[in-house]
Structures are given as structure tokens and as C-alpha cells.
């Protein structure tokens, strides 16, 4: 990000950037930067908090009034709710997820795939509700229809590997996009439930990675797809499917 600021400013266009890793910004010294205390993925703070978003935006814009640079300012507060620091209080999703198969032989790929399919069916009404309410969805980058996401991902549990269903994506990147699509279906669905109104993104992500069979499937795929001899698939499986914060 700092590099982009440097290169664009060099062409005569003034820039001001959000800094999420202050150490990087101090090192790169872009022309104007505002260090904010929010989590990755939240440069303007909490969703739905227009007042906070306005304050961050104004603090960023006012950097254009600096007479000289480089200038690095600190946003003076942490906002509230979703972007506050500290451990998230665990949240459980009371959806009727298919416990009947939990505790069974998770080494049976077919059983795990069926369990995730059942989870997905339970979540779809809330996903559809969320998309209608928000008039948008962030699902769809893989080009795979939602009902087919689980079977495509589960196909990586054992050879032979499937073909990429998207001509714009290599097989490893189709897997990556499908994983993000599946995760977004879950997160969009549960975040639209009335009983999740007070949750923040840390709680939602912790719920996904600690409680769902989908996360179990993704971890199993990351393990199975690593070491196939395909260098790109090794990178995707080893580094790009499970967040670092959820793997230690």
C-alpha cells in the first residue's frame, strides 16, 4: 500500500493511505498515512458504524492539509464493538446443525462431505435472507454454484484431483476461491440472524473455524492437498486456506 502511494504521488497525484501495520509504514515512509487500530479487513472500522467510518475518513482526508511530509498520524481511538481489541467472547450458533454425524469417523471423506452439505442446507435460508436484505452478496468469485461448492472442495480429499470448473482460474486458485465462497455463505448467513446481531467479526470467524464441520473439511483438504507435487497447490493448501490465527 505504501508503495502504491509512493508511485502514484511520484506522478503528481496526492495520496493519503490507511496504515494497518504501522511498522511497515514507518519503514516505507509514504507521503501521508493514518495508522488505525482495527483488525485486518476493517480499515474503516466496524460494519454499520457510519459515525466511526466518517471519523476515520475525515482524519484521512485532513492529511491532505499537511504542508510537508512524510506524515504519519495515529487515529485517536479504537472505535467500538467489532473492532475493539481483546479476546472475543465465544458465540455459538444455535442453528440445527447435523450433530448426528459429529463424533463419527471423520476419516470417512463421504461422511464429512455429507455433514457439510447438511450444514449448508440449514444455513441457506439465512444466506438468501441476507442477500435479499443487503441487496448484494460477496459469494460467487469461484464461478461455482453454491450447491456444488462442497462436492468440489471435498474432491481434494482423495485422488484423483478434479478439473478446474472455472477457465479463468487454475485448479489451486479455483480451490482457494471455492473455499472463500463457502466461508462467505456461512458468515453472510449467520450474521443476518437476529440472534447474531450483537456479534462481532472475531466471534463469527471463531465460530466458523471452531464449531463447523465446514472448517473441519477445509482443514482436512488443506492437509490432503499439501504434498501432491503441484507447487501452486502446495502453497494454496499449506498457506492460503486456513488463517494463521486459526491454525496455531
Amino acid at each position, binding site marked *: 500500500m505504501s508503495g502504491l502511494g509512493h508511485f502514484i504521488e511520484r506522478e503528481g497525484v496526492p495520496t493519503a493511505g490507511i496504515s494497518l501495520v504501522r511498522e511497515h509504514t514507518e519503514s516505507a515512509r509514504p507521503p501521508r498515512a493514518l495508522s488505525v487500530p482495527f483488525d485486518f*479487513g476493517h480499515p*474503516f472500522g466496524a460494519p454499520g458504524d457510519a459515525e466511526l467510518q*466518517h471519523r476515520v475518513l475525515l482524519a484521512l*482526508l485532513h492529511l491532505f492539509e499537511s504542508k510537508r511530509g512524510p506524515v504519519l498520524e495515529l487515529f485517536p481511538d479504537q472505535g467500538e464493538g467489532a473492532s475493539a481489541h481483546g479476546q472475543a467472547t465465544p458465540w455459538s450458533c444455535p442453528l440445527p446443525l447435523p450433530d448426528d454425524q459429529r463424533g463419527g469417523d471423520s476419516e470417512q471423506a463421504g461422511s464429512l462431505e455429507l455433514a457439510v452439505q447438511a450444514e449448508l442446507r440449514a444455513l441457506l435460508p439465512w444466506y438468501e435472507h441476507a442477500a435479499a436484505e443487503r*441487496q448484494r452478496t460477496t*459469494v460467487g468469485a469461484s464461478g461455482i454454484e453454491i450447491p456444488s461448492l462442497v462436492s468440489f472442495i471435498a474432491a481434494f480429499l482423495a485422488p484423483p484431483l478434479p478439473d478446474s470448473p472455472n477457465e479463468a482460474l487454475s485448479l489451486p486458485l479455483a480451490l482457494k476461491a471455492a473455499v*472463500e465462497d463457502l466461508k462467505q455463505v456461512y458468515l453472510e448467513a449467520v450474521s443476518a440472524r437476529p440472534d447474531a446481531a450483537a456479534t462481532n467479526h472475531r466471534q463469527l470467524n471463531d465460530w466458523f473455524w471452531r464449531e463447523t464441520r465446514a472448517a473441519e473439511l477445509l482443514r482436512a483438504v488443506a492437509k490432503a492437498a499439501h504434498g501432491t507435487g503441484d507447487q501452486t497447490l502446495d502453497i494454496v493448501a499449506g498457506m492460503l486456506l486456513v488463517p494463521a490465527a486459526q491454525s496455531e
Partner: protein
Amino acid sequence: MPDLDSLPTEFANSLRKMRGPALEGEPWAEGPPLSERRIAIVTTAGLHRRNDRPFVMGSVDYRVVPRTSTRELVSTHISPNFDRSGFAEDLNVVLPLDRLHELAERGVIGSVADHHYSFMGAAQIEKLAPSAADLAGHLKADGVNGVLLVPV
């Protein structure tokens, strides 16, 4: 973000190693008062319209994000290490176009550009220079004299 020390050790160490190379010079461009500025956003969230080419590992090019495309946006950023639920719930968390237009209506800024731009922020910094220079030409042609750079 939280202090690096509060993150998982391996992740924090990888972030510490991600400091880019020193960049030559300290460029500084001037512009008019804020109330006269035309503002565009350049994000590195890997956003693009659903039917645009996805970003892939090593992408150093950008996608155009028209102000009318906000309901079509998805992300093909390759990193798993940022939250995407906020972006799903409220686009303004990563691309605050609603907030920007509100400031324009209040006269705080002059105007909002019709086009915004997206990179995928996992590229090596120095490899972004040609695309950034090309983009700067389009920004100037559009009368933009304030660019907000937004990472995820």
C-alpha cells in the same frame, strides 16, 4: 491492527519480514483545498466485479471499480488472514463510497470520482510501479487530485 506481539507468533514473524524495500525519494504533490478536491479510492482488497478477471498469485494489475458496481463486488485476494465478514455486511468497511458521497454532499470535499480502482495487495512493491504510473495517468485525466489508499 492489534500489536504484532498479540498475533500468533508465526504470523507476526511473517509480517515483520514483509517490510518492503526502501523506496527512493520522498515524493510530495500539492493540491487545492479539501473542499475543491476530487477524490478516488484505490483499494488493495482484491475487489472486482463478479464477472471481471479474478486476481491470481502475483497479479500486479488493477481492476476498475465503477461507482455503480458496488452490488457486484467480490474479492479474490489470496490471503486468508483478513476478515471478510465486515466487507460482506457493509462495503463501507473497505470501500467507503457511501461515506465519501455524504461528505461531498456536505461540501467537505469537492466531488467523488466516477471510477475507483482495486489491486490485490500481495504483490511485491516494486513490481507495482508500472501499473501505478499507468493508473496515475487515468486519475489525472479524470481530474482526481486526492487518492485514498486503502489496504485490508
